[in-house]
């Protein structure tokens, strides 16, 4: 959605407070300029009102000429037109949603525009050009996820019996296409071994037009409302192998089997991530596995969700032959006790607080526990391996000061229980600092809806929990509270791609444009900021 031009006419001055405002306008297609009929126009209130506090939204639809009119109480609204077949959300490089402030009796006229979606269509064929049915086609683009720029899915489609696919509803942009043969999937429970007359080959996930990696191809540029046809992908063939793992005797004498998965590393390099599994003569076998790096995990849950979980992980390299995984080395989850200590007085209780352990490698979660009112917690099924510790939510008014495992302070919150259970001490403090200020753009005007990043610097730079983001209000104002003492850098991003400011590599070239602040216990800072404009080349 784009709101290209918002013009307002003030109809009546000095209107009565109870008098409603009127918003009328027209919705047009950015490409052909034609009116968009049956478009939904939502004016979403930005002020919470009523009991319980709630947001009021006013919704109407355009008629056959693309026109709409809506009466609503005065106030602040976000204008959000939408229609299927047109892009919802905000394509870059446009700034945040258009805000409209309506005075009593005001009559606003809006010219709204919608960007038509595009289509990519074609066929997926095999080495002979024969159509492949039920092949998956992913439309991917680069975006930031978890602070890292990576390929992520925008749409997906499946081929029909003629090998055809049609991916529609695509916002304009640069896309990569990846096709994969239908997943074999499923677990076969029998003791049969297939004896092949020729070596097993399979279709490899293939980027348009004919590459294994996105980096070897050029993206498809899709213009608004355009349709790219005959985008045909011929799937590459590759040798595939089997990965066999001998099952342990059921650990508690029951007939339960562990839940075994084989995942490619890194995980996003595989469109499906699952291989056909067969259980034969007490062994688990994954068939059709292409060469590459994998991680095999096996977990055996305790009896009806109780008792320790047995867990094993094994890294597997598949090169040019079948792989026999050596006997899995199962470890048992352990019980870890801990305490949350608070320096200072807390306004809200600890009870809703949770301590979570997240392992670095794929597998089950590392265990978690709720904290009692007195600060004690017990993680019943903690994974004895390096895990990142998270505390959520941190009670209002406090910040996470330090975490200790036994007597050792953990500078990056990594809890390693490999050597056995040791008490975890979580220290909260209430003497956090506060930073506020106003952000101005290059023209010196207050910059609304700008993303601010507060990045820990110096000694605590490894603390992921201390990196915070905020968005400026209508007057360009921002606020961070309960900041742990230490050095920080502040960035105000005019037009950074969503998620990008969390990436240290992305921030690096802009460091000289950031503002350094040192927060002392209970200190208050007012820091005016200027927006950083990201040049398209560096995006």
């Amino acid at each position, binding site marked *: 959605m784009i709101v290209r031009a918002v013009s307002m006419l003030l109809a009546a001055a000095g209107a009565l407070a109870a008098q409603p405002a009127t918003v009328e306008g027209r919705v047009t297609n950015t490409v052909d300029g034609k009116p968009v009929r049956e478009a939904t126009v939502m004016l979403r209130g930005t002020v919470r009102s009523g009991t319980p506090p709630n947001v009021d939204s006013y919704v109407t639809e355009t008629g056959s000429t693309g026109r709409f009119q809506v009466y609503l109480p005065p106030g602040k609204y976000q204008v959000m037109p939408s229609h299927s*077949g047109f892009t919802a959300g905000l394509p870059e490089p446009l700034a945040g949603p258009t805000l409209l402030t309506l005075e009593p009796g005001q009559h606003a006229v809006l010219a709204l525009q919608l960007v038509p979606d595009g289509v990519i269509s074609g066929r997926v064929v095999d080495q002979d050009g024969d159509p492949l049915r039920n092949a998956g086609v992913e439309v991917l683009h680069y975006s930031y996820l978890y602070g890292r720029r990576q390929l992520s899915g925008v749409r997906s489609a499946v081929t*029909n019996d003629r090998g055809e696919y049609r991916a529609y*509803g695509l916002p304009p942009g640069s896309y990569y296409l990846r096709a994969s043969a239908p997943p074999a999937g499923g677990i076969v*429970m*029998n003791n049969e071994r*297939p004896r092949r007359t020729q070596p097993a080959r399979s279709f490899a996930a293939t980027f348009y037009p004919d590459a294994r990696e996105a980096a070897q191809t050029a993206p498809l540029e899709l213009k608004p409302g355009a349709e790219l046809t005959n985008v045909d992908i011929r799937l590459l063939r590759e040798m595939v192998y089997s990965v066999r793992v001998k099952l342990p005797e059921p650990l508690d004498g029951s007939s339960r089997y562990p839940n075994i998965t084989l995942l490619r590393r890194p995980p996003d390099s595989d469109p499906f991530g699952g291989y056909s599994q067969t259980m034969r003569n007490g062994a688990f076998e994954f068939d059709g596995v292409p060469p590459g790096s994998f991680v095999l995990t096996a977990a055996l849950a305790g009896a009806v969700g109780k008792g320790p979980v047995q867990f094993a992980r094994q890294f597997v390299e598949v090169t040019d032959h079948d792989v026999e995984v050596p006997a899995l080395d199962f470890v048992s989850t352990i019980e870890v006790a801990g305490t949350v200590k608070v320096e200072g007085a807390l306004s809200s209780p600890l009870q809703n607080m949770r301590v979570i352990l997240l392992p670095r490698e794929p597998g089950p979660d590392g265990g978690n526990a709720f904290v009692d009112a007195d600060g004690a917690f017990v993680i019943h099924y903690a994974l004895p391996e390096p895990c990142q510790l998270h505390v959520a939510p941190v009670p209002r008014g406090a910040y996470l000061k330090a975490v200790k495992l036994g007597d050792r302070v953990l500078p990056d919150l990594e809890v390693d229980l490999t050597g056995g259970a040791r008490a975890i001490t979580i220290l909260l403090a209430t003497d956090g600092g506060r930073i506020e200020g106003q952000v101005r753009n290059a023209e010196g005007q207050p910059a609304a809806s700008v993303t601010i990043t507060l990045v820990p610097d110096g000694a605590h730079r490894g603390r992921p929990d201390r990196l915070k983001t905020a968005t400026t209000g209508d007057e360009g104002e921002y606020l961070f509270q309960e900041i742990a003492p230490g050095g920080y850098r502040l960035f105000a991003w005019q037009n950074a791609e969503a998620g990008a400011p969390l990436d240290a590599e992305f921030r690096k070239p802009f460091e000289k444009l950031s503002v350094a602040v040192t927060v002392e216990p209970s200190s208050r800072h007012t820091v005016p900021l200027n927006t950083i404009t990201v040049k398209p080349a560096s995006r």
Partner: protein
Amino acid sequence: MKLISLLVTYSLAAALLTAQVVGGGGRGGPGMRLPGMDLPPVPTGPPKKPGTVEGVVSNSVTHAPVKKATVNLRNLRGQYSYVATTDAAGHFLFDSVEPDAAYMLTAACPGFSFQMPSGRSMFSLQPLAVAEEQHVTGAALQLSPLGVISGKVLDEDGDPIPSLIVRALQFDYQQGAKRLAQRGSDTTDDHGEYRIFDLQPGHVYIQAVARPAGPQASGRMHRDRPDEGFPATFYPAAADVTSATAADVTPGAEVTGIDFRVHKVRVYRIRGTAVDAQTQQPVHGAGISALPCASGSDRWGYQTSAGLQPDGAFDLRGLIPGPYCLTIQSNQGGKTSFGRQTVSVADQDVDGVVVAVSPSFALKGVVAAEGPPPESFKNIRVMLSPAEPYGGMYANAGVQEDGSFVLENVVPQAYDLQLSSPPAEGYYLKSIRLGDQDVSAGRIDAIAGATLTLTLASDSGQVAVSVRSASGDPAARIPVIAIPEGDFAARRDMFRTGFTDPNGNATISGLPPGDYQVLALENFGDMNFIQSPDFRKLFAHQGASLTVHANGRDTVSVKLITTEEIEQAKSKLP
């Protein structure tokens, strides 16, 4: 989904065969017995030189060769199978086959279903023999091409409706009940077009179903026109299947132009409160979902969900008129609560609905044996499945050495009780008591505090079944089934099966005392149909009725029910 049912049947047979050869515990369903398939003795002596098997796969309609078909040469002893692919002439070759007289050839290819050569049942097949250095040639396998239906869905203005789910449905019997079963589906594209392929021949109904849509923002929505949505619609313009028109799909046919319009209707809201059934206090911190529900599955649809507010209030929007099952399932601090309520939406919003949420409880029980106890109770699992469709919670528990078990997270609702497998060799579940109530028919209304008592017995009877074809010849390698009648008709764990030997004789053993009907079916896959009492009635004269007494030994004669007869009966029933 004949292909699937065949495969399922096959793997079941393979499992049974494996069980027979290896002597391990069968993975078949409760009450399954080993088939009487007479495999030749396992070859012995020094390793023999391999033989070869070759042949052609063709399209059963056009007789054209089928390329890139996967051909499977399966050793019926269940140890291994060979896999080959056909070339452009449909030709396949297995160039190194271990000599044995127990092979079976099958073929598979996307867009086709496998047809058993000449016969219908895999059990009527003679195993394929490959001798030392023998070249088996001329194996002819047929694949039956599947059908396609395509068309487009438009709204009342003739504009395409994108992102609708279009379903292809056929009538089917499942666990004895006639119902519409989904055979395929597609999602309409931006042109409103759909294409559903791999359809088995037959009458196919096409239904378009919309996902719940509309701008769903949090907070209060003020709309200047009523909310509208697309109701589930059958081709050409029907709300339910009785007034729908079926497309006739023949093998390999492409039925095009199944275009239809879906007209928007007003949609409504269901508002109300969730309360704790005991304390009447509001329940929050969970979600509520509404699922279209009615008897028969032609009212299939998407779930609509909403959150529960701190005062327990909920507001479900965008509901097409019709009956809905509302369910709430909350998990707080490891404790599960569940609530369920049926609400019908007609031509206005429904307000003031109260959904009572009950905490779950642990249902304790004990397994005991009448007469000598089995060696161990430890392999027994007790399973509860919700008796009502559309929402509900399952529970299951393993039995301890002393016969006790505890079913966790049970909620006050009706369940069907089953054991996961035959309790122990020679034993069957004779009676079920909940508190002092006899619920041996298998349906229990779970209440907190009551104790389940399951009694096993080992006084089962057996019946010798002689099967003859219409011409009076013995019917060899035919599955026979004994189906409980009367009080225990719903006890699926009391079904017992057997297979006839080359002389047309089968033994069904392990029969709990009671009334049964015994039937012999040419095709194992027709089991689903024969479980329907209506269906069974049509074949009463071909089967035999029988009362099994404790430790009884009976003999009955039955006539073979052919696949043609089943097909004819299917078209007779409404």
